[in-house]
């Protein structure tokens, strides 16, 4: 199984530990075998250990250590945000966040919607069963 996601300049990674948990960052340069210089539009450029990063499939086209404006422009050009939110991984994270932020009334509404959906599915299934029987 060859590797598909490489640590390279322009690779987007998700932070999976620490203060910036859940953020998407760009690998802007590699310090050494264990650390990278990462940057995101809303944070100061800093170093991060690879153990705190999970690489994604998204890669943008930047030169080594771009300045903040170029980085933001490149991220806009590659449309990182929409690519991430439309990917299955990104969508799953959005759903998780939504579920964690529901209040009790929202959970009640979800329960009603689930019951309704199950009812509709069961009706369709009964119709199909009748046709084949």
């Amino acid at each position, binding site marked *: 199984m060859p590797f598909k996601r490489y640590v390279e300049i322009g690779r987007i990674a998700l932070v999976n530990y620490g203060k910036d948990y859940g953020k998407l960052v760009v690998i802007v340069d590699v310090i050494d075998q264990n650390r990278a210089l990462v940057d995101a539009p809303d944070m100061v450029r800093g*170093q991060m250990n690879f*153990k705190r990063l999970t690489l994604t499939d998204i890669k943008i086209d930047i030169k080594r250590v771009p300045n903040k404006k170029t980085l933001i422009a490149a991220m806009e050009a590659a449309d990182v945000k929409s690519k991430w939110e439309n990917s299955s991984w990104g969508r799953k994270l959005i759903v998780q966040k939504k579920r964690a932020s529901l209040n009790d009334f929202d959970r009640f509404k979800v329960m009603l919607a689930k019951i309704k959906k199950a009812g509709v599915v069961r009706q369709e299934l009964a119709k199909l069963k009748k046709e084949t029987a």
Partner: protein
Amino acid sequence: MSYKYHQFQVVGRGLPTETEEQPKIYRMKLWATNEVRAKSKFWYYLRKLKKVKKSNGQMLAINEIFEKNPTTIKNYGIWLRYQSRTGYHNMYKEYRDTTLNGAIEQMYTEMASRHRVRHHCIQVIKTATIPAKLCKRESTKQFHNSKIKFPLVFKKVRPPTRKLKTTYKASRPNLFV
């Protein structure tokens, strides 16, 4: 990023006497964990270089030096003198880091691990930011590649906070990327 070793600029001189009204002022840049230790180190080195001790000298200033550009990666060369079990040796080591304090911390931990030299047996002679062309060590030169690319081979997924850490897991972890 909190560093264990901070860089201080320590300025001191001998006390003025009748024979010497304006003694020479000496300044040192050194690394210590705190200001108290920095002052002590200053007198240690000054005693070895000049005929002055803490008891007949005075501290004029001590300031912490912070990194000017902590967002750029630099190659640091560190010259040091250390005491091994059999004598004193000089060494030159290179580190890639964003700050000089980080490089010094890397140096201390590496000397401890590779040569079993503890912190008090190491004296930093000189540090410098080395441009990429003049780096001597292959382990720093291998990162001087603008198109650097490598995969992360073993990816151990950690719980996102230490609170979620468990001793036993239901299944073996998947280490592929």
